[in-house]
């Protein structure tokens, strides 16, 4: 190789190294921007219809109370947080927490984030705001771990609601079923009319787990149902077998394309009169309102009158939140009466506080408020209140197989094993 060529190569190498160094420096500057004085990043999975509208109401109030704070709306779409939770975990493990994030009350909050040491306790905030007086005892118990409170509930949802199309029911003289026998008798009549009896949309498997938890609550009753999550009720017992048998029979009455639909697409079938009923949480009410559907009827699913299967969305304070002061102001708003009264009528849920004005809510939500005050409260499985996320994942797997093979004995054995694997049963 001649000298000039070698020199040219050397110069080229030097140029490459210098350019790379400059580029790296620039990139590192871009990665670590000077933090602006006032920002607030809120992570949630509220992206559809009433969910997003409710979130924006909260943001509006927040801007009024905290002018000059820039709000970053970090949402990841997907029912029940199915897509959002992995994204959040990646951020938290990577040391990049949002200022506050949506998390279900109960085992999901405690087992995923609190016992692992990712959250800050909120006892001072609870004392300052007097929240121990306004949140019901059952809710406080699900937010407490080792004597501290770990997040602020913004709403209460009911998981066990049977939604139906009033027009279809009136035309045919049908009544919402009280018992499982009623349910199957009615389902036969619907099928004879060419109507799909039960609409299901379980493209995210949580919707069939949701249906199963409602059946479990209906068959076992509130005490035995709650015992499932503490190990007091035997997963190998005859009640669980009966619940699986009923679930298997129910699955013979669902729309054949259920594994291609989402819960709201399943609700569309009821709205259009193509399906008679759907069993889903009370976010269906907000979906109906957004779709301008006025003929929606509701009732407790078979066997669950007087039982309120509850879940709640809460916001907590991660350790090392980049804008801690703004995050605390956000939590104050989320727990306040003004915040909850602005949020819940739009989101289609009831207040976690017990002092909200019922007149602000629509007819369904008013009935839910009455039931909330009167019914037995039990935690939802599919929505993180009853069991840890890893246990829910095991039950999701059992249900995935069960929905297609409907093998009761196999599913029961797998459920019992899941309880052992979750270190709740022995």
């Amino acid at each position: 190789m001649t000298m000039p060529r070698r020199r040219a190569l050397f110069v080229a190498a030097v140029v490459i190294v210098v350019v790379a160094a400059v580029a790296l420096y620039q990139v590192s500057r871009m990665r670590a921007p000077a933090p602006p004085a006032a920002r607030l990043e809120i992570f949630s999975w509220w992206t559809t219809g009433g969910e997003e509208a409710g979130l924006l109401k909260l943001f509006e109030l927040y801007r009024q109370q905290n002018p000059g704070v820039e709000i970053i709306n970090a949402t990841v779409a997907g029912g029940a947080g199915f897509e959002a939770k992995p994204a959040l975990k990646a951020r938290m493990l990577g040391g990049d927490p949002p200022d506050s994030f949506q998390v279900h009350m109960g085992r999901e909050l405690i087992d995923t984030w609190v016992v692992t040491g990712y959250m800050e306790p909120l006892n001072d905030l609870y004392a300052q705001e007097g929240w121990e007086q306004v949140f019901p005892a059952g809710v406080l118990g699900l937010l407490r771990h080792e004597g501290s409170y770990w997040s602020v509930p913004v709403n209460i949802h009911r998981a066990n609601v049977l939604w139906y199309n009033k027009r279809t029911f009136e035309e045919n003289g049908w009544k919402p079923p009280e018992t499982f026998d009623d349910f199957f008798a009615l389902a036969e009549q619907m099928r004879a009319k060419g109507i799909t009896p039960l609409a299901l949309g379980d493209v995210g498997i949580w919707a069939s787990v949701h249906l199963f938890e409602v059946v479990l609550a209906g068959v076992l009753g509130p005490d035995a149902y709650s015992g499932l999550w503490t190990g007091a009720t035997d997963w190998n017992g005859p009640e669980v077998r009966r619940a699986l048998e009923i679930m298997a029979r129910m699955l013979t009455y669902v729309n054949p394309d259920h594994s291609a639909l989402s819960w709201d697409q399943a609700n569309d079938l009821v709205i259009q009169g193509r399906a008679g009923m759907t069993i889903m949480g009370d976010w269906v009410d907000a979906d109906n309102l957004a779709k301008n559907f006025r003929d929606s009827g509701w009732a407790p699913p078979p066997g669950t009158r007087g039982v309120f299967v509850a879940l709640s969305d809460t916001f907590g304070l991660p350790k090392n939140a980049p804008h801690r002061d703004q995050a605390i102001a956000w939590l104050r708003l989320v727990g306040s009466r003004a915040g909850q009264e602005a949020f819940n009528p739009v989101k289609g849920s009831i207040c976690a506080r017990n002092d909200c004005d019922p007149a602000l809510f629509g007819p369904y939500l008013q009935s839910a408020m009455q039931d909330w005050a009167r019914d037995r409260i039990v935690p939802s499985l599919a929505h993180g209140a009853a069991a840890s996320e890893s246990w829910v994942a095991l039950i999701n797997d059992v249900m995935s197989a069960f929905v297609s093979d409907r093998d009761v004995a196999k599913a029961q054995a797998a459920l019992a094993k899941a309880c052992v694997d979750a270190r709740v049963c022995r």
Partner: protein
Amino acid sequence: MRSTSDRILAAALVAPSIAAVGLFVYGFIGWTVWVSLSNWSGLRPDLSWAGLSNYATLFANPRFHLDIRNTVVFTALLLAACMALGLGLALLLDRGVRGESVFRSIFFFPMAISFIVTGVAWRWLLAPGDPATGRITGVNVLLAQAGLPHLKWYTDHTVLYITPDSALGQVLAGMGLGFLTGPVFGVPVAMLSIVIAATWQMSGFVMALYLAGLRGFPEELREAARIDGAGEWQVYRHVILPYLRPVTLSALIILGHISLKIFDLVAAMSKRGPGFATDVPAYFMFETTFHADRFAEGAAIAVVMLVSVSVLIVPYLVGSMRRESAT
């Protein structure tokens, strides 16, 4: 003969990329293997030694058995479909069609699209609908108009397998192969829709590989074969196809490793599918790690996937290295 300073310069130029690959590829592979041998379950890292227990749990999990079945079925069907279609298209285009570049672009274009987009589009096209209520969309509209039965596509939970009572099943049992009867050795029908979408995406790529191979084929050889009295079919069968063997091998390797670690297409189209009919190891790994927080078990799935891809790739790499050093 190269001078010392040349060698130093060369080493300096490749050193950064060797360091980067060493850390970000091999370092993280090592880290994943380590995690797969630990007790890490829950968000807090726990790297205490667990030995092979995560692998034992994994191979005892019926869901993972179905995942392996699905991967084998998907890979076999995808390779067969893409190779046949890609070679067919390439041979047709090579016959000198008018406007060849237009067709080439059309067939190659899907390759430029992300699997996520392909998955979403085919999810709509193959939407199963509900024949009971007459809500029919997508491809099923065409089927209905042609008087063909309505298909469930990726929501079909049927698995085609040999039952122990069937004649074939009894023959197998007689040969001591009775374990082959049962759904774990079956073909899930729902997987066919994923294969259709993936074939749509990848066959144009195979076509492009073959077309490049055909273009490199010396015309004199073809002429020589003809002079020797070979018909058109014989020219293809005995001259051109053997000549294309390296192309075939490359295409198989590339498609094979894509299909063994497919994730995005399945996630966008059907996720786990009814009864895990379209579940694949990559999707199971994603759920195990990021939904269930069983990080050690998720890492074990990742390692099993890496090994399965290596089984395909390593012999190919060794072979091509031998060939290079021979020349």
